[in-house]
């Protein structure tokens, strides 16, 4: 959260949306990151005139040149503005009479995006490049002008394979069960990526089909399962633990067939291979984005997702592992759990009477996303309503305990807390294990990066109070919500991208926690909802040296 932020209130057809945003953004930029988008057919240059909104209240910049060209005096006097030109200078209210048709695609928040590696004047291929971060739950895209080193737009949408199950194994098992299923899973994501790309081209470039031919380079990162499903290779191998320490082949066998299927006739298209079984190239991309090999020894990176991945740099070796700690942090399995979408409780703060919920979009709560869950459980602990064992001091009954008595979806049950405990124990025990392998104590950690969308709204103090993160001083924590995409952009654009990737992979040592004898001990220890103690990383690791 930035220190100052404004609230933009948008009315449309009796519905109201409230979005908080940092100063300096245009109304279009603000709304592009929500499900309620303005119409658009240019990259926000003011050329298409499609993005009309009516200003109702609040300070704003005076009309820009483009608005004098696209709007007549009557329209301007009636408060009409082009959303891509109007920038609120405080809390404001606008009316959106003709929104864009609903779409599953939204832009990534501008604050999350990294700068990118810069122009590449020598680039001679077709001008556009596409970076894709293929996650279990979401797909993220960024379209670039490679030569200029300019990011044209980004998108985030749901991974449609979700209908086959939230976790990767169900999808792998489905794909293994029948070739037709495998084909269906593959087609679903490929279509989704194309759809996201078309959305960018339509709204930010202005032309779709001819532009597909202008795409010269595509790089995809993702977790191993997603890459295997997309490539149609390695699915059965992934279901066999014996194969996990080996790299996984997931390059498509025939690139020409691929280019045709993707409708990208001139693209050099590559999936960045995962490191091992369940350590995907999304983690490798994170490591590039934070420039891990140049970081001080004792830098720990967490990528919290459906499957969480971790890496610890000790100055010589990059210790890497993965844990299935994530689904609870994305709301899966929690009675009133949901992804960080409109209606999700993303934060909970103490208030005079009970607590105050911070709901995305400002409407009634529909459920908790990960950061809200952390806040809620931390608050219950602080107020003594929940014990370190995860038990409620007084049983709340089958409906659970409502953090806001007026909001049914704010109820948490004992089973929800149990699930959270398992997820946090799996993650914390993995951190402790990596520290042990590197012969380090958590106090030695110079920096902790929390990657993945979970980090964006996470309150680190609350996470620390529950033992989800080690109790480092705030200055050593940083969040990088879109690090995987940023790393993929480096691979797409930077001339030395490949060689940097090879360096990272060369330093990596993967640990399969299922074979770590002391992991289960640490897991049990970390089930308790208490901050990390001093002794947590002692006495382990000698087996790796």
């Amino acid at each position, binding site marked *: 959260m930035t220190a100052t932020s404004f609230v933009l209130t948008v009315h449309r057809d009796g519905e109201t949306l409230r979005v908080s945003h940092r100063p300096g953004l245009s109304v279009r930029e603000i709304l592009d990151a929500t499900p309620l988008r303005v119409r658009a057919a240019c990259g926000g240059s003011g050329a298409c005139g499609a993005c009309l909104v009516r200003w109702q209240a609040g300070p704003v910049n005076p009309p820009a040149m483009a608005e004098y060209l696209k709007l007549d005096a009557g329209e301007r006097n009636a408060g009409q503005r082009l959303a891509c030109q109007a920038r609120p200078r405080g809390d404001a209210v606008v009316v959106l009479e003709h929104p864009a048709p609903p779409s599953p695609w939204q832009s990534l928040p501008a604050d999350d995006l990294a700068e990118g590696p810069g122009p590449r004047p020598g680039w001679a291929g077709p001008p556009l490049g596409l970076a894709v971060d293929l996650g279990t739950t979401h797909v993220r895209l960024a379209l670039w002008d490679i030569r200029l080193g300019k990011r044209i737009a980004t998108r985030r949408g749901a991974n449609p394979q979700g209908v086959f199950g939230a976790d990767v194994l169900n999808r792998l098992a489905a794909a293994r069960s029948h070739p037709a299923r495998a084909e269906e899973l593959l087609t679903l994501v490929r279509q989704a990526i194309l759809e996201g790309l078309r959305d960018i081209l339509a709204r930010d470039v202005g032309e779709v089909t001819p532009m597909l031919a202008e795409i010269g380079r595509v790089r995809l990162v993702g977790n191993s399962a997603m890459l295997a499903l997309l490539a149609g290779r390695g699915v059965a191998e992934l279901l066999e633990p014996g194969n996990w320490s080996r790299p996984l082949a997931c390059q498509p066998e025939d690139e020409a067939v691929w280019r045709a299927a993707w409708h990208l006739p001139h693209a050099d298209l590559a999936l960045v291979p995962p490191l091992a079984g369940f350590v995907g190239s999304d983690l490798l991309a994170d490591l590039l984005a934070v420039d891990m090999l140049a970081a001080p020894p004792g830098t720990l990176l967490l990528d919290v997702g459906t499957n969480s991945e971790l890496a610890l740099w000790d100055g010589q070796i990059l210790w890497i592992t993965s844990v299935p700690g994530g689904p609870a942090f994305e709301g899966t399995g929690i009675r009133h759990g949901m992804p960080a979408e409109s209606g999700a409780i993303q934060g909970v703060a103490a208030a005079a009477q009970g607590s105050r919920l911070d709901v995305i979009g400002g409407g009634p709560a529909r459920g908790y996303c990960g950061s809200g869950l952390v806040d809620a459980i931390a608050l219950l602990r602080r107020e003594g309503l929940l014990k370190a064992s995860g038990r409620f001091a007084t049983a709340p009954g089958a409906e659970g305990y409502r953090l806001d008595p007026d909001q049914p979806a704010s109820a948490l049950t004992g*089973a929800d807390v149990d699930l959270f405990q398992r997820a946090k124990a799996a993650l914390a025990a993995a951190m402790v294990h990596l520290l042990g392998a590197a012969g380090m104590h958590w106090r030695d950690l110079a920096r902790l990066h929390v990657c993945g969308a979970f980090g964006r709204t996470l309150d680190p103090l609350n996470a620390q109070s529950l033992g989800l993160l080690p109790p480092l001083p705030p200055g050593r924590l940083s969040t990088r919500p879109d690090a995987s995409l940023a790393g993929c952009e480096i691979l797409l654009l930077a001339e030395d991208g490949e060689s940097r990737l090879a360096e990272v992979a060369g330093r990596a040592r993967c640990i399969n926690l299922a074979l770590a004898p002391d992991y289960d001990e640490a897991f049990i220890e970390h089930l308790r909802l208490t901050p990390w103690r001093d002794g947590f990383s002692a006495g382990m690791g000698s087996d790796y040296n």
Partner: protein
Amino acid sequence: MPHVDLPAIIQAYNDAVFDTDKDQAFQIVDAALAQGLCPEDVVFKVVIPAVEDMMSRITQDPDANLAQHFMTAQIAAEVTEKMLPLFRAPPERIGRAVIGTASGDLHSLGKRIVMGCLKSLMVDVTDLGVNVPAERFVDEAVRLDARVIAISAMMVHTATGEQGSLRVRQLLRERGLEERIRIVVGGAPYRYDPELYRQVGADAWAPDGVSAGKVIADLVRGRPPTP
């Protein structure tokens, strides 16, 4: 003989277990021994009743959580293990079970809880480890004269897969062992579908480690499974 306040010890121990406070539980056991309680009584009058108490609390209270199961089993097993060498005569054992996780599955924690409870209930249990092939389950059960093969599976595809419980059932049938050896399964997927154990050819299942102890102990004794 110094005064031993058994009800107070039991109460304090149960509370510590219920609150998943292992250090506290051990302190109570040490204090009880110092007061003069004998190791046999620690096991039979404090630890085993505590497991049984947890069992009844769990059935009445669907909210009993994983940390509590772990601690009940873990503390019970550790205390029992510490006390057994101090017994004047070796206690009577009920019989033997073998336990392991299904082929393809490396999750060992569920098995660990179940073993903890079995140990404190005086069932001899042999741990076959993780990723155990069906053949090995059967071979070891025969070699050790075990009455129960307990199979833990934490993932849907290892619970229902052809190399797991289904294959163990097939082998028992082929070798004519079905009357003598029972299959008990458990793990997360069975909790979502209480009928799943039948589909994978098992004789019984249990939703948590503490009740698993009882189900397995009964079958080891030769009692029929109570579905």
